């Protein structure tokens, strides 16, 4: 991979992060908003598996911190959870890439569920135990992963 290709990918990563953050913030009607996928998480996992040299834990952490600020909740929670997911993917991307797609989706489910458990643990330690509806968004997030992953594989230059 040469320099122009990696800088092109770098811009693509930034653009998709920003796009996901904006889409996550668009208000939806009340019942729907419980089931919406967490697009930023999906995008972070996609890039960590696809371009592990460019998308590190640092950018995931920074994106999480900005979302925390914009959301007004616990500062540092989203940053921690997103960087954990990026870290797991970066450590295991070589093994995960060769798996069939179905097992990849299962891996993503495990990563997201682990991150969700960590989030619930920290939230309850802070005295804000989330309702059961916290988990309603997990299926949509997991299912949005193969779609976005497929799209991103096409966007990237063959390398």
């Amino acid at each position: 991979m040469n320099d122009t290709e990696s800088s092109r990918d770098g811009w693509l990563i930034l653009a998709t992060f920003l796009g996901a953050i904006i889409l996550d913030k668009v208000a939806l009607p009340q019942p729907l908003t419980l089931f919406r996928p967490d697009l930023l998480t999906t995008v972070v996992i996609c890039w960590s598996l696809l371009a592990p040299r460019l998308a590190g834990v640092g950018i995931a952490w920074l994106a999480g911190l900005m979302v925390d600020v914009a959301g007004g909740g616990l500062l540092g929670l989203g940053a921690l959870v997103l960087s954990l997911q990026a870290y797991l993917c970066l450590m295991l991307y070589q093994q995960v890439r060769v798996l069939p797609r179905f097992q990849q989706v299962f891996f993503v489910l495990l990563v997201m569920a682990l991150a969700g458990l960590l989030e619930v643990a920290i939230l309850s330690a802070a005295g804000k135990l989330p309702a059961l509806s916290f988990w309603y968004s997990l299926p949509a997030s997991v299912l949005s992963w193969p779609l976005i992953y497929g799209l991103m594989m096409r966007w990237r230059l063959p390398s």
Partner: protein
Amino acid sequence: MNTLFIRGPAITLRFLLLVIVSAAILVADHRYRALEVPRGWLLTLMQPVQIIADWPTQRWHQWTAVVSSHVHLMQQNQHLRETNQRLVLEHQQFASLQAENQRLHALLGSVATASQPARYQLARIYQVSLDPHSQQVQIDRGSDDQVYLGQPVISSAGVFGQVVHLGPTSAQVLQITDEDHAIPVINRRSGERAIVRGEGPSGLLKLPFLPAHADIQQGDLLLTSGLGKTFPKGYPVATVRSVSVTAGNNFASVVAVPVAEPDKVQEVLLLWPDRGSLPVEPAEMDPDLQREDDSRDE
């Protein structure tokens, strides 16, 4: 390709560093509230994102307003006209009632506590989804408009919340329905005092630690008592929905509904309370009274 081999440990080290930083930030922000200033800067940095995310919902509201029928608009207009007329009528008596109230308070030798705020300003709520674990909204006014942390925010119907995070051009408002929010109230019918806490996602309120024999019934209106020094006295907060007392329990479990209808509100009012409407600090009390206290101590 040499990066392949140093990558593993380097990335673990970086991740561990980020975990420690995150933990430090979590504690400093949640326990000590020490990061409000950097939070304000970052909030400004994120404002373009809020504005872009707000745009589709904003357009949708405008579009539904355009296509809503002529008849509907006429009805709305008629309704607003009637409300306006009623308010004008009520306001005509307000000045004389206020003067009378102050005179009676002066006769009793006490300070009149209910008064109009010194200043108020309208703020628009950004229609964006915020942190799902807390009941907050973001408004388009900030410290450039003299907004301050802890400032009371009301809607046209009643108390809405208070400012918790503040940037130069926008602020985040914690609603009274949030679990972390508590507000001292007074029952308009019985005059009993209580604390109203948020219940979180249900959008309801509860009154904890209210004795089972407390004089409170369904339909009671709860007003701000002004004791918390954040909210001025006399604004409606909630109506009591249900009171239940179980045998053997010393406390009544009381559920209340916020008057402000937080889900439907698109604009709120920021209040700058008049100093007279908040309870007097002991240090600001009449010097004669204080001297009396001192001499009693001696």
